[in-house]
């Protein structure tokens, strides 16, 4: 990684920044877009519901 400095750095070959790579990758975005709400909303929410105690007499 550090050794590619002496390559011809034409604009076309400039490395694409990580964030742009993420935003250009529909399937990675799909994964995140399903994973985040599934874990934070659905799974956490269902755990909350399951852990409601049963009433005692």
């Amino acid at each position, binding site marked *: 990684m550090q050794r590619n400095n002496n390559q011809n750095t034409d*604009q*076309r070959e400039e490395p*694409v920044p990580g964030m*742009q790579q993420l935003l250009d990758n529909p399937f990675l975005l799909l994964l995140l877009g399903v994973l985040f709400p599934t874990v934070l909303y659905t799974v956490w929410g269902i755990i909350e519901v399951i852990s*409601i*105690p*049963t*009433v005692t*007499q």
Partner: protein
Amino acid sequence: MSIMPPAQKIWWKEPIHGIEIMWIIIALIWCLILFLWMPYWHVYGKQNLSNESYKTSPELFEAKATKMAKAHTVRTESKSNIPVVHPPVGSDVYLLGRMWQWWPILELEKNKTYRLHISSVDWQHGFSLQPTNINLQILPGYEMVVTITPDQAGEFAIVCNEYCGVGHHTMLGKIYVK
């Protein structure tokens, strides 16, 4: 043009407009204030919904409500003789929602605290106390416990604000505060 690919192949490194940066900072600060307001109100506010709830069954809840009503009924009201219950200050008070009434009628004392248990024995109902305007979702099989301190005297209606069938609009209950 938003309907064409970005003008630069590497657009992530393009400079951002000054007003965009300013607005993002202002908006982010406001977002954090909005967020922090909720925990703040949990500590300093007086109106918070308790997380205390239990899984129950309609039969069990109905039995508890009936037992309370038998012990503390002071009179009955309306053609259908709905009991008016005056529970002891600080006690556990049961309010039952069913098609299509809130049962029984409660009589509470002003500025006294009660543990109000609410549940439904059939479908979902909405507890909407008017005109003070407190709204809770009531589910069958779940007993919600709200510690409540009426600080206004008068006659309050409990409107059902969750659709519960064709008689939904006739579903009312009552709380007197003396």
